[in-house]
């Protein structure tokens, strides 16, 4: 079964109190399954980080895979061993 | 700091929540004058020492010193609400009430030369507009009793539960 690591940044880290979590997916599991797993495991993420319903990320949070690419379609599949960064980036100041 | 002795409601500000945005002053001045001018607001924000921020409006003191101080009997206190009413025909802008107020909650309108005091928007259905607008929920309509209850509860939680 594929395993991914979700790294928490910003709000996600504050809410969960964790830097990262390992999630096991079923064969064929998608990024949306990652969102569902996070919502189930950390209900407090629902609101500011995950949209009510637990199916979508709340803007402007996003998944970045291995610091290389951003996930645009949650129904695609991560690779085993992917590190998924849950973050938002803000400019200014 | 002087405290209100009132049984009446008044608008209070929690300085830990207030961020100093002044939206209360904008909305107050608009409701009362039809213009946006924080100089004409009946609630005033205060900033000191860079990080101390709060807002002050009439505390509806019992036996209100401003009423007592007025040499022309222009000020009166509503016995039910504690709100201070200003009789514009009598008030001549002498500012004795301003001096008498420990909270700095009274100002004199430079054009009409009459005293202006928070009336908690008593004529509006949804109550004080500053409370409605405050984005940080720092303002609330409360009484000294309710404030005391909350302080006791907060203290108990801190002392007993250590948080």
């Amino acid at each position: 079964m594929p395993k991914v690591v979700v790294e928490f940044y910003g709000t996600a880290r504050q809410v969960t109190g964790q830097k990262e979590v390992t999630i096991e997916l079923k064969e064929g599991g998608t990024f949306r399954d990652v969102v569902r797993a996070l919502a189930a495991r950390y209900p407090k993420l629902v609101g500011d980080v995950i949209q009510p319903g637990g199916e979508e990320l709340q803007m402007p949070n996003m998944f970045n895979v291995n610091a290389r690419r951003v996930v645009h379609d949650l129904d695609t599949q991560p690779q085993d061993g992917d590190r998924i960064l849950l973050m938002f980036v803000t400019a200014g100041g | 700091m002087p405290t209100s002795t009132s049984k009446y409601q008044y608008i209070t500000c929690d300085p830990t929540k207030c961020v100093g945005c002044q939206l209360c002053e904008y909305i107050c001045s608009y409701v009362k004058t039809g213009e946006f001018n924080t100089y004409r607001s009946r609630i005033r924000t205060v900033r000191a020492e860079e990080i101390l921020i709060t807002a002050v409006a009439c505390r509806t003191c019992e036996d209100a010193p401003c009423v007592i101080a007025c040499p022309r009997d222009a000020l009166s206190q509503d016995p039910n609400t504690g709100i201070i009413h200003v009789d514009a025909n009598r008030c001549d802008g002498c500012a004795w009430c301003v001096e008498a107020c420990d909270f700095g909650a009274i100002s004199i309108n430079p054009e009409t030369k009459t005293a202006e005091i928070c009336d908690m928007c008593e004529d509006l259905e949804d109550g004080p507009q500053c409370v409605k607008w405050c984005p940080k929920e720092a303002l609330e309509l409360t009484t000294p009793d309710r404030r005391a209850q909350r302080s006791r509860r907060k203290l108990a939680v801190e002392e007993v539960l250590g948080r």
Partner: protein
Amino acid sequence: MYGYSGKILHVDLTTRKTWVESKPEEWYKIYIGGVSMASRLCWENIEVGCDPLSPGNPICIANGMFAGTPVPVGGKYGLASKSPLTGFIGDSLSSSWFTIALKRAGWDGIVIHGASDDWVYVFIDDDRVEFRDASQLLGLGTFQTEETIREELGDDQVRSATIGPAGEKLVRVASVTNDSRQAGRTGHGAVWGSKKLKALSVRGTHGVSVADPDALLQLSYDITQAAQGPHTQKYRILGTMANVLNLNRLGILPTRNYQQGVFEYAELISGEYLHEHYHVKTIACAQCPIACEQMSQVKDGPYAGAMTGIDYEPLYAVGSNCGVKDLRAAIKTIDICDRGGMDAMSTGVTISWAMETFERGIFTKEDFKCAKYPEGFEPNFGNAEAVVTLAEMIRDREGIGDLLAEGSKRASAQVDAERGTETWKWAMHIKGLETPGYDARGLKTFALGLAVGTRGACHNRTAAYDPDIKGEVDRFSVDETRGKLAKSTEEYAAVYDTLPLCKFIRRCFTGKADRAGAWPAIAKLINATTGWDFDYDAVDLIGERAFTIKKAFNIREGWTREDDHLPWRWMHEPMKEGPSAGYVVSEEELEYMKDLYYEAKGWTKDGLIPKEKLIALGMDDVAEEIGV
């Protein structure tokens, strides 16, 4: 006219005369306010080709239509002069009470001409102007100057924009400060110092009227409420400091003068760490319901007592970029900059240039002698006390601080001329303005946005990091979309900078920050305020016009295509490690993207503006002067 008074105040410091200029409504519809109107006033009033520190360079201030109304985050103003760092347009923004006071005093803008023989501050008391002796204010820090003036004038409601000791000494990275916010970049403090203008103080007592107050209130109320939700969560809790860990993870956190993009101690200087250990209070600018400024205080160690608002940009500059892992020292350095009246970004990046120059053996301990360390000190990366001390030396122009006060471009040129070295290769600036907190080798669209920026390397005037970071394009490569993206993102930013509204509100109109999400709502705000009839297209034009007047200014001051460059390091030294390892922005990539950009803008291959283009934008008089 609603939203404007129609009046610009002119003040001549040489003759001590003042006069009032009336502007027609059509002029306001084109230049609007903020950076656009300030830049236009600079275009109209400068002696072309003048030395930025000479009397011919005007100080131009422009309010916005929303100042003094409940429109959230509308309390901002634009400040423009010719920049002593770049020699091109220096357009800055600052927030809070100063601009609101100016609005209530009845002025849409101020132009300050000439130079005073003695130190003065100018007090604008509604429609009365007073020149006041500033000798007792000399040497005072920015915040203290504001307080002292309030005491002197006996009114808490007097709001001042001031310079600190750095501006007095013509430090080229000096800023202008009001209400503890800065018009930080491009060296305005030195321009004020050259005119012996210590402060501009304002008391405004009039009310502000708008065309449709009920509509404006309802719109403002809804935005205010939306600004408490997830759309601004990132600003309210950690503020911009949340970027430290994010950008570090993406391999673009400037580290040790941009030699690296990953800082091994990033956790120790993160927003999360700051929040837990040093945060004392979150505060807002006037008229802002978001409140993003994280006031932070050092409680122990040699820098105990230092306190100021900490944002990401100053922090990367004096933190990771100088190899500093102690937030206490970083807070102290930023505190020195804020009180001394200096741009912490340019200060930090100039210090990091000096540190690298030392580590490469060009500077020696001897070069760093000062009153505090008579034998000198060794500013290796990570030496926090060295960074603190160098900030003080720049502020006071003490020892090597006198050289560094010139900014990295001039300092490196001087060292290279004297010693035959090539330190310019690690001077991190564009057009003379030091680079912001993103390593552009891992953000190719942003690299273009920075290179073509009219005020030099600025992350606020282009939002081109957005498509890179959000993954709308591949951030590591270049393709034909980048010219249009650079145009689109810089003009998007310019709409906010011109109204001006703080960009942090951009998601609060409809939940979507793009043009479709924001422009219709902004048009409603404009119309309720002014009674105009703006639509999506009219809002969109605000940004293009703003960028055009700034570019026109630069062309008239001698800009050529070669001025749109990147620091040598970004173009020749591949990133060493992390997710951006191996990347540079090559000469070929940059020139290709510049071609695309000029084409997207409708300019010539040389980056000049055709006459027809200017006329179509309603800028006929500009077309006459610089159109091709």
